[in-house]
């Protein structure tokens, strides 16, 4: 995900301090991976340099940089363009999962056993997310569903792969 464009999008709601943008980014999009302040301020400086935002004067207050940023027309055009584009339909393949299956088959190790424990781990995570949906608010549900559907796609691949291991083994063994 593009951090600069996401911050720019948050900035379109109204003039904001870097602190507020970081807080909202973390709350909506960070989920366990908060932005560093240094990254926020460096990004905002770059956006200002490139004419996407304008930095106000430093405010006379103690603490971290107190400076209000305002999005420019060019910045808004960037956000609009970005939101109208599809994200690359290139899922971040669970490449470890794929690599483990192929290597297990190459090395004549029990690929089926690996797929079984992976399935169990995926299902356990889906149970946690399903429980979280029951207790969470709307945004929790939306995000949990997003992860659940992706885990489900992995699980379908796991089942599909488990059903044709013999064929795959012949294809990868030398």
């Amino acid at each position, binding site marked *: 995900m593009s951090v600069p464009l996401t911050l720019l999008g948050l900035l379109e709601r109204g003039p904001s301090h870097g602190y507020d943008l970081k807080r909202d980014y973390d*709350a909506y999009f960070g989920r366990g991976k908060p932005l560093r302040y240094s990254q926020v301020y460096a990004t905002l400086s770059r956006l200002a340099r490139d004419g996407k935002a304008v930095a106000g004067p430093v405010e006379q207050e103690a603490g971290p940089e107190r400076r209000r940023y305002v999005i420019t027309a060019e910045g808004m055009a960037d956000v609009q363009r970005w939101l109208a584009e599809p994200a690359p339909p290139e899922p971040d393949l669970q490449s470890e999962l794929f690599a483990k299956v192929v290597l297990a088959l190459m090395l004549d190790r029990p690929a089926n056993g690996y797929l079984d424990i992976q399935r*169990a781990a995926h299902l356990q995570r*889906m149970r946690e997310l399903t429980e*979280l949906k029951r207790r969470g*608010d709307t945004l929790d549900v939306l*995000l949990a569903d997003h992860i659940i559907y992706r885990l489900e796609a992995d699980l379908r691949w796991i089942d599909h792969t488990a059903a044709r291991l013999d064929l795959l083994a012949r294809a990868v063994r030398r």
Partner: protein
Amino acid sequence: MDRPHGGPAGPARQGGTPVTADRTGAAKIVEARGLFLSFGETPALRGASLVVRQGEIVAVMGPSGSGKSTLLHCLAGILVPDEGQVWFGGQRLDALSDDRRSALRRDRFGFVFQSGQLVPELTAEENVALPLLLSGTRRGAATTAARKWFPTLGLDGLEGRRSGELSGGQAQRVALARGLVASPEVLFADEPTGSLDSMSGELVMDLLTAAVREQGTTVVLVTHDARVAAYADREVIVRDGKVSTLSGAEA
């Protein structure tokens, strides 16, 4: 926007403790021991074993034709295995006469299937009351008990509808009410959301799990759908007529 979304435990949190209760200490309620069953020349079960404990929700998963529905039918006393034993509490289900097995099914078990289970000539309320009427409850008491389920399952006002006048999701919730109305000890559900879209299916599973947790009902749930299985306490995988050992034939 003055309240950014927050909370200490977002879904992105990795790992964490299991959310479901550990019931390994609870009493066994249903058990399959080494079941074999063939339909003609075709083996469906080849040594399937499974222990289900009181109050747990177990998802039985597996590819099409793996034998998962056949296993459910044996556990529920609908089918009798060629070999092996089926236990319910302290009783050998497979050793009972057909009549006694039917009576036990009617009085102690509830059922929800994929679709098409409602009697089309009856209203929703009469459909729900049916298990009580069949086990000898008077009509007035059966109707009162049936009616209680309608608000619980979001079916207010639909008591008088026939199945043709209900949406798929509504019909499935009526079927769920019918499965639970007699307070069964075990609810057997075979692809209970199989004919529903994802939103209706989710609603059915939310209501099903809330109701059975409230009543302490044990559930054996056959599904190929991982999102449905995620409502269970644990899953077992049936493959080639056996319960995969990794998934815990012995709970």
